[in-house]
């Protein structure tokens, strides 16, 4: 349906090609979160892999920082419609985390869990093969608390609500269990290029 009188402020062609449907480019770094920014003490920070409720492996901050590092640069897309281009992240890839734990993924799905009790569900296939990391640095500096520091998940090919902030662990699940937003009507998978914002999109 054409909106009477709307012409729009089209971004340049090169920008439009990089924008998934319904997104617009921002130069800022907006924030989406459901509550206050949690206060996390690095001395008490832990990152834990679990299968169901059973812990498989836990790292302290110093141990986690000693794992092999990965970098990734590219575009990120938030379900609230902003996209940001050429963001630069550094952290530990999902593959390296599993390798350091000495395990293969025990199931095909997991829930990323945050220190704010946030959860979000992901297929293991969308993390493995250098597709995701637990990031600890953004643009060359430690990630600030409002952007999910000290550590956040980074799964840049999905809407950014999948990149759980203040991540404290990954819990492998037998089936694809809905996380916080997914229980509240957001899409189970969240591919920005297919505009999978809400259930049924």
């Amino acid at each position, binding site marked *: *349906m*054409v*909106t*009477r*009188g*709307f*012409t*729009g*402020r*089209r971004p340049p062609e090169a920008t439009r090609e990089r924008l998934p*449907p*319904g997104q*617009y480019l*921002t130069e*800022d770094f*907006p*924030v*989406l*979160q*459901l*509550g*206050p*920014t*949690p*206060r996390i003490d690095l001395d008490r920070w832990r990152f834990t892999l679990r299968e169901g409720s059973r812990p498989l492996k836990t790292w302290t901050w110093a141990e986690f920082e000693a794992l092999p590092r990965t970098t990734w640069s590219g575009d990120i897309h938030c379900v*609230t*419609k*902003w996209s940001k281009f050429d963001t630069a992240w550094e952290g530990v890839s999902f593959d390296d985390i599993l390798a350091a734990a000495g395990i293969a993924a025990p199931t095909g799905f997991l829930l990323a869990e945050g220190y*704010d*009790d946030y959860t979000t569900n992901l297929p293991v296939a969308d993390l493995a093969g250098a597709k995701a990391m637990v990031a600890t640095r953004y643009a060359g500096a430690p990630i600030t608390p*409002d952007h999910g520091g000290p550590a956040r998940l980074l799964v840049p090919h999905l809407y950014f609500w999948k990149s759980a902030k203040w991540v404290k662990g990954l819990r492998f699940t037998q089936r694809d269990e809905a996380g*916080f*937003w997914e*229980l*509240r*009507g957001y899409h189970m998978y969240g591919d920005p290029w297919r505009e999978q914002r*809400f*259930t*049924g*999109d």
Partner: protein
Amino acid sequence: MIEPDARPLAWQRATILAITPVTPRVRSYRLGVAFDRPAHAGQHVDLRLTAPDGYQAQRSYSIASAPDDSGTIELLIEGLSDGEVSVFFEEVAAVGDEIELRGPIGGSFVWVPEDGGPLLLVGGGSGIVPLLAMLRHRAAAAPDVRSLLIYSVREGAEAIAREELLDRARDEPGFDLMLNVTREGGGRRLDAALMAEALDRLGTPRHVYACGSNAFVEAASNLLLDAGLAPGTIRTERFGG
């Protein structure tokens, strides 16, 4: 938590029924639209504008009206300099126009009467909009729930629904208002003393909702944590900017 609805959220047409100025930069848009699912105070809609060549822009706007069966909703849209969608509303949209939207959206920043209180609402600028829906709903459906609104604006003239809020504070026994002006005579930003006064007047809130720009919500929620409130009681909505 409100019941999730597994049905797809379809785009639908809404007609602009009335446009009313509210402040120098904010207008009220009354839209005729029937949702296929219940709405809750605090939710928003997504609007989609389409140009003749198919180019589209989408943005989110909170619903200012309380959930009711009038078949209409109220949006309050602030015109931002250079804003693609808000300036279209400010300069082009007219009564009788059809706008595509879908909703209601949002399952976290929501208050239902069964949630009860005391209720602490903290709004900055246009961040008042979803809080207004909560206050309107509270007055109609749960007037016994005690509530306090801290509403921070740069200048008094920018306060959305100022008369309504002052009237409510005067007429509704369970509602208390703290209007805070940051840039006029003796104005100050939200600070620990102001938060302490609010908590003193209200008591410890069971639910806190903070809404506004990123910077406002970050500052407000940090003050709330400093004041000793439990993180799990505080819900936030960030409009951007």
